[in-house]
């Protein structure tokens, strides 16, 4: 019954996918603008206009094309910015294949190595295809509180000449590279989740869950946190209000998330924890040895993640300028600090500093600096890194014991907890008084003079809370649905034999 159901479902999705492009292509390409704003000619800067509301948080830009004035020629992207974004996109792809694949793969037992590699490669590929069909439009394709629109379904209307806004007025990048860049984010995020239920998940369940979660949790949270009409749409208090009213729910609140602490890490971390609870522990958990089979691979994976993360964080600036350089330095030092902190904390508490600890510390630092990288100063980044190393070490030991679930690869302990910490600390260290960039006001075209740490941390907390609840609820429903349709877990015999043989008919190693 389950197999018939899932076969029908697959056939329906493929059939739909085959039919719809034909329908979409008939329409003429949309014109460049959906947000018609007049050039900022005589708009009086609103100096005293409610700074708290006027201050617009820099976050991931929406790819809205600029006003298509009949006289003004379409903006031409800068070649340096474009080249950088292409490279950044490739770096993030490297983070997934093979970075995350090897990082996770080395942590499981040899008999399950291929299952991790397969889940990584397949989820990456499936989400990539879905992104360019409906993911991008629903995340960045237009105004809305929780979702965009379907105007750009199948990337309708997007040509090599289409442009996407950055965080600087008048600066654009080709929309297609923005699509690709964001695609890599959408693709890596669900893969993070599978670490929580590694070594026992049914392959079809992993794929189906990721498709559902991508559609109902990743897309709306990406939209809520990152969607806005772009800086050129803001010229005065009135246009600021209009942009805010049409922007994503959390962006409108002023939440700061440079590269995805909420969208990626908390989102995935919570989904992973829920999955670990709902799917249950591995056979023999707590009694049998389940040591990582190759920490050498884990280290290689962690290193590829660190290097690739420069594309993830620095590319989130969408252009190559001083802020990109800041994000680079922060991604560098926070990670180094976290590696040191975790290792030393482990050395002191357990007696020996481990390779797994160092690798985990690095990842924890990367996770925590992700929302902060373009907003904090390097010293703030170091503090964030040091705290992440210690807090996430607790997350994978003390907290893990408290929670009692078998979160096999510590998705919540590292990504969930690290993301929460980073998101909250962003509110603290973005303050100019602590070396941060502050918040940029696109009406006055200057950094907002007052910055309240307390106020911003409260906004961050709301973003964190919203993400946790949204992801949690969607995950519970999705896991339940998947369990009903295909079943979440492999049989006991299959789990004992190892997923490589039972699910994929292959062995990673032949001794």
């Amino acid at each position: 019954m389950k197999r018939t159901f899932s076969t029908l479902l697959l056939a329906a999705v493929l059939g739909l996918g085959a039919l719809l492009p034909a329908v979409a292509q008939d329409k003429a390409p949309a014109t460049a603008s959906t947000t018609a704003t007049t050039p900022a000619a005589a708009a009086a800067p609103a100096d005293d206009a409610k700074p708290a509301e006027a201050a617009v948080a820099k976050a991931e830009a929406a790819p809205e094309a600029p006003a298509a004035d009949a006289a003004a020629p379409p903006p031409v992207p800068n070649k340096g910015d474009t080249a950088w974004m292409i490279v950044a996109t490739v770096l993030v792809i490297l983070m997934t294949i093979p970075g995350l694949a090897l990082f996770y793969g080395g942590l499981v037992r040899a008999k399950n190595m291929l299952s991790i590699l397969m889940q990584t490669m397949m989820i990456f590929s499936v989400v990539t295809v879905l992104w360019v069909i409906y993911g991008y439009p629903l995340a960045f394709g237009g105004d809305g509180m929780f979702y965009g629109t379907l105007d750009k379904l199948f990337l309708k209307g997007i040509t090599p000449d289409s442009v996407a806004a950055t965080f600087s007025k008048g600066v654009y990048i080709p929309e297609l590279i923005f699509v690709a860049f964001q695609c890599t984010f959408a693709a890596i995020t669900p893969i993070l989740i599978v670490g929580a239920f590694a070594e026992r998940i049914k392959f079809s369940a992993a794929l189906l869950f990721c498709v559902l979660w991508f559609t109902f949790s990743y897309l709306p949270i990406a939209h809520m946190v990152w969607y806005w009409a772009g800086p050129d749409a803001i010229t005065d208090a009135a246009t600021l209000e209009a942009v805010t009213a049409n922007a994503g729910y959390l962006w409108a609140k002023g939440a700061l998330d440079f590269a995805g602490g909420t969208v990626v890490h908390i989102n995935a971390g919570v989904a992973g924890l829920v999955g670990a609870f709902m799917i249950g522990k591995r056979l023999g958990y707590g009694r049998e040895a389940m040591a990582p089979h190759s920490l050498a691979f884990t280290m290689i994976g962690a290193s590829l993640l660190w290097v690739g993360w420069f594309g993830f964080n620095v590319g989130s600036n969408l252009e190559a300028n001083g802020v990109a350089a800041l994000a680079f330095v922060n991604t560098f030092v926070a990670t180094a600090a976290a590696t040191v902190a975790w290792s030393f904390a482990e050395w002191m508490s357990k007696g020996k500093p481990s390779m797994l600890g160092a690798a985990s510390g690095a990842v924890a630092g990367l996770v925590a600096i992700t929302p902060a990288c373009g907003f904090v100063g390097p010293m703030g980044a170091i503090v964030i890194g040091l705290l992440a190393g210690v807090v996430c070490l607790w997350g994978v030991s003390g907290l893990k014991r408290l929670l009692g679930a078998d979160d096999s690869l510590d998705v919540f302990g590292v990504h969930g907890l690290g993301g929460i910490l980073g998101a909250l600390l962003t509110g603290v260290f973005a303050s100019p008084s602590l070396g941060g960039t502050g918040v940029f006001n696109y009406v006055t075209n200057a950094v907002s003079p007052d910055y309240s740490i307390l106020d911003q941390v409260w906004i961050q907390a709301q973003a964190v809370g919203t993400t946790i609840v949204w992801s949690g609820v969607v995950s519970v429903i999705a896991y339940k649905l998947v369990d009903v349709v295909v079943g979440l877990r492999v049989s006991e015999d299959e789990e004992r034999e190892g997923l490589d043989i039972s699910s994929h008919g292959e062995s990673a190693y032949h001794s």
Partner: protein
Amino acid sequence: MKLITAIIKPFKLDEVREALSTIGVQGITVTEVKGFGRQKGHTELYRGAEYVVDFLPKVKLEAAVSEDLVERVIEAIEASARTGKIGDGKIFVFDLEQVVRIRTGETGQDAL
């Protein structure tokens, strides 16, 4: 004819092999095994998960020898495999019923 089985520490293998050649043992079979006696294992820590690993890597070697050689073989193995520290291993002597050399078909003492 006797089959002598010895469990020794892996790094002692070369010394033992040389000592056996010296007293005229023509061939041995070596297997990598895991085990423990009174020697304790070690603890491994992976993030929060602690594993006590009781099994230690050892090497098992087997040699089929004629009865008159047995005493000298035991001495040779003992002397070359000993470190004086716990975990040096054990030697077992089994009675060997039949031996056949596959290439020539020789049996018994001639096959040793």
